[in-house]
């Protein structure tokens, strides 16, 4: 089964997306051959009240339980977030928690995140940290949102070894992932979401390319295929782009199967 760990419903504020909303996402899933998607709402990022997005996710996962796996966005700067979280867990059995520290403006090293991690452990849920939704270089001047520093993510991964943490990003995400691995080489409690990954060039000092490296092949070697989760960020990104990157990588079919869905299934069941 192909399971996308990072699909987005809700409204995108910067341009009209043709496939916006759950109907659009469903049609993209059908087009790209994606059976299931872990989903959150962009409204949880951009609306004043992040719960509006979670309400939408609750509704669509009730309508299409066979296609959508609900994640709940938590904004730990919001009063009563813990009560909100527990209500959503009870109400629609969210399978994971998602954090947007860049937009919601908090540090991963703060007290709030320690509390979120504790709740996640108690509830047995993975925590997805989205360091940035889209490349900062495209952000309009009136709304430039700095991405969460990857070193903060590395520190959080080391500080909360009992938590399962999924990491996703945007601008030059592969470079950030390489830094992450460098700074948390011993940690085994994190997963890397694949949207935004591409190739990188091994270079010598002068900037000349010495070899070309496919990120999926490299990561399967560096951290193991069991820690890679296929994600698309659709309908913001074209889902086939990320799927093709995995499918056309020179890794075993077993590894592809793991990345495209099996790892996520195991993580969410656990």
């Amino acid at each position, binding site marked *: 089964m192909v399971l996308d760990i990072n699909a987005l419903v809700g409204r995108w504020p910067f341009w009209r997306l*043709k496939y916006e909303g759950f109907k659009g996402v469903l049609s993209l899933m059908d087009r790209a051959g994606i059976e299931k998607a872990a989903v959150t709402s962009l409204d949880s990022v951009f609306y004043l009240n992040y719960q509006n997005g979670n309400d939408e996710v609750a509704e669509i996962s009730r309508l299409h339980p066979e296609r959508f796996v609900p994640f709940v966005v938590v904004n730990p700067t919001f009063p009563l977030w813990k009560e909100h979280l527990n209500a959503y867990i009870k109400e629609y059995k969210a399978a994971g928690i998602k954090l947007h520290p860049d937009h919601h403006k908090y540090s991963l090293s703060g007290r709030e995140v320690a509390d979120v991690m504790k709740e996640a452990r108690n509830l047995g849920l993975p925590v997805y940290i989205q360091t940035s939704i889209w490349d900062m*270089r495209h952000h309009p001047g009136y709304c430039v949102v700095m991405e969460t520093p990857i070193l903060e993510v590395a520190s959080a991964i080391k500080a909360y070894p009992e938590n399962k943490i999924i990491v996703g990003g945007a601008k030059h995400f592969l470079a950030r992932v390489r830094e992450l691995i460098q700074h948390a080489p011993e940690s085994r409690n994190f997963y890397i979401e694949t949207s935004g990954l591409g190739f990188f060039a091994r270079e010598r000092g002068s900037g000349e*390319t010495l070899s070309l490296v496919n990120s999926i092949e490299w990561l399967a070697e560096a951290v193991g295929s069991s820690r890679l989760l296929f994600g698309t960020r*659709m309908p913001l990104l074209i889902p086939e782009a990320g799927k093709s990157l995995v499918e056309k990588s020179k890794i075993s079919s077993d590894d592809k199967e793991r990345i495209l869905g099996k790892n996520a299934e195991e993580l969410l069941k656990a």
Partner: protein
Amino acid sequence: MIIDIHVHPVVDEKAFGHMLREAEAAGIDKLVVLGALQRTYYEDEKRSVDDENMKMKKVMKKYSDSVVGFCNVGCTDPDATSFLEKSVREFGMRGLGELGYERHWDLRGLLGCHLLLRKAGELRIPVVIHSWHTEEGLSPHLEEQVGNQPRHSAHVIGEIARRCPDTTLIFSHVGGIWEKAFQAAKPYENACFDTSGFDPLMGVVERAVQVLGSERVFFGSDAPGRSFVAQVAKVQYADISKRDRDMILGGNAMGVLGLR
């Protein structure tokens, strides 16, 4: 025919072969290999343009079916125009670029390079220009965080195109914030864009076709820093007509490179 208009050179022969195989696996037939970055980029090395041309010529000879070579010159080099002419006439280069990717240099400097750009027009070759425009009003801190590459106001795109009406200018990376870049370029038929070097965002290619027409859009990947399959998907899965898709994927490039 799929032609990638934006590929950076790879010096190691084995790595170059690997890149070609990856391109082929993504269904790409031809790669436009851009000239090595300008001499000013390699401040300590001071390699000559002729050396770079010789290297490129070898690559073009070895992979004549799948590689089209571009040259590059230092924008601030007083001999840039004669280097360009020599590169085209003696070494068989079919384009110039990627211009503007020089450290410590503002792309507004291209406004002073009209002689070089007009020479490209005379030689009937296209020019690929690195293009991420900046947003007005950002604090120096944000400027630094948002991008460490040469950036410029969107208006520069239109102004360069206005000054060199006979030269085909291909601004890379859809200009950064594409909505502004497309509007800046819209009045100038010679101002085109490539789709290289950013995440496969939905709707960007469609918007380019809507504002500029497919004749002014070129597929590019920005390999080896980007994946061929993910980059070509931007065009393959865009909601546009087959004709528009064919133009962007290769038809336009065949025209400006004289491959028809």
